[in-house]
């Protein structure tokens, strides 16, 4: 099942795909542009993986890793489908990262690889922006790069794990203004989903609603204000975001 969360006519609704747009839980069917899309779930802790696709790691000139490169993100970064993300006017390189987001469904502590997938509730598409100009070498990736307001786009749908046939064979694609720039497949994850759950749960407790952004494949390019960025993952839909300028945010 695919579920979204939208704001419409004064309330927040669970919503489902419909041939005419989106169907609210109360039965109303509305066009995709008539509603405001929120992240499909209220997220708990957000984990993100750096350099978890071999080719992308090569692209950024990193060698072999001793353990997964995990960092954490705060709730203020979360943005829904069709949201806008600000690009500061003074930066030279801001990029999207299309990622498979894994949603934890059961408390997980010291879970083995064999049992790990039982703790997965479902999946979403994530587009996790970064601004390379702000990279500093303390507690990388520093929050000014990776924890910006509106920098983590999630949705449009949360899809139950049972509805995804083989999560190790999903294609990821990103289009900027209609041109495909990024292309990868979850089969190329350096640390796969069961290993990530085993690793994280070995030193901390994962709870329902926690989200693991599993990293992004190669193919990142700079985006500019006005660009439309669309991330697709097989079976999960199509996540749209638009880049906005400082001026749009009242920063002259």
């Amino acid at each position, binding site marked *: 099942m695919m579920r979204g969360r939208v704001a419409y006519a004064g309330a927040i609704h669970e919503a489902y795909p419909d041939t005419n747009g989106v169907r609210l839980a109360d039965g109303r069917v509305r066009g995709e542009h008539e509603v405001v899309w929120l992240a499909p779930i209220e997220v708990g802790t957000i984990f993100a993986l750096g350099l978890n696709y071999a080719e992308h790691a090569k692209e950024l000139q990193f060698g072999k890793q001793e*353990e997964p*490169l995990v960092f954490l993100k705060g*709730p203020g970064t979360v943005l829904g489908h069709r949201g806008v993300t600000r690009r500061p006017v003074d930066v030279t390189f801001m990029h999207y990262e299309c990622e498979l987001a894994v949603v934890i469904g059961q408390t997980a502590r010291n879970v083995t690889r064999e049992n790990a997938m039982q703790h997965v509730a479902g999946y979403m598409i994530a587009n996790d922006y970064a601004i390379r100009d702000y990279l500093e*070498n*303390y*507690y990388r990736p520093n*929050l*000014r790069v990776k924890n*910006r307001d509106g920098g983590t786009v999630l949705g449009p749908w949360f899809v139950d794990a049972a509805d995804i046939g083989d999560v190790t064979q999903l294609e990821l694609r990103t289009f900027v203004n209609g041109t495909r720039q990024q292309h990868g497949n979850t089969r190329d994850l350096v640390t796969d989903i069961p290993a990530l759950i085993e690793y994280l749960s070995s030193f*901390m407790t994962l709870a329902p609603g926690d989200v693991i952004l599993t990293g992004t494949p190669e193919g990142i390019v700079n985006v500019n204000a006005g660009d439309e960025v669309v991330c697709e993952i097989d079976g999960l839909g199509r996540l749209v975001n638009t880049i906005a300028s400082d001026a749009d945010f009242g920063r002259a």
Partner: protein
Amino acid sequence: MFALADHLLHPEGEALPRDVDASSAAALLARGMACRAPVSGAVYGTLLNDRAALAALGDAMHAAPYKAPPKAPVLYLKPRNTLAGHRARVVVPDNALGVEIGASLGIVIGRTATRVGVEQALHYIAGYTLVADLSVPHASVYRPSVRFRARDGFCVVGPAVVAARHIPAPDDLQIEVSLNGGATFSASTASSVRNVAQLLTDVTDFMTLGAGDVITLGVPHGSPVAHIGDSATLSIGAMPPLTVSFVGAEEQEGEQP
């Protein structure tokens, strides 16, 4: 929203927090009461905001892997599994390394703070609390593993959030950590690179802090290290002190079905 009248604390076993005056809070705590963390928002830790910490890095800041002194605040998340309260028993994962006790001033946000100016910053603060920002000691601050700072119980907060009006000078508070009632580690919020207002200004330029969120002013340089069996008492200014004890992993282990 996040609002408090005086001293907000959440006794273990009670459904709701209590908001009481200083003497009532002291009386409750004197009975040996354990508390839950008095906050439930996001908690952001700050590092290298102590001038002594930067001085200790010295020339290393200009060499690989750092290459330059930090410009933006050095921050990280303390995720929800790390939250614990007064009298928490925290597992020491490796007793040879111990656990560093970063006694930090917790700044508790009262209303949505986005692009807050220095002059207005203090108006966004509901109150202050103590944060024992715990970590497995690690030498490099380049890309430390989350397993050093994000372990269960590694962010002990409280016992109380103290209303901001009780703390008119947050940038001049004495910080003390006592291990087992003995030798005391001392520091001060006065040695911060960024003071409370400047930190909020620089952080909220790119990320919103919400009501009930906490950001620490930063871990003091040279913080003490605890081992299994130790008990630490942290105090900052005149706020009620925070007690944490350190235990072995034995009783917590075991795989889930």
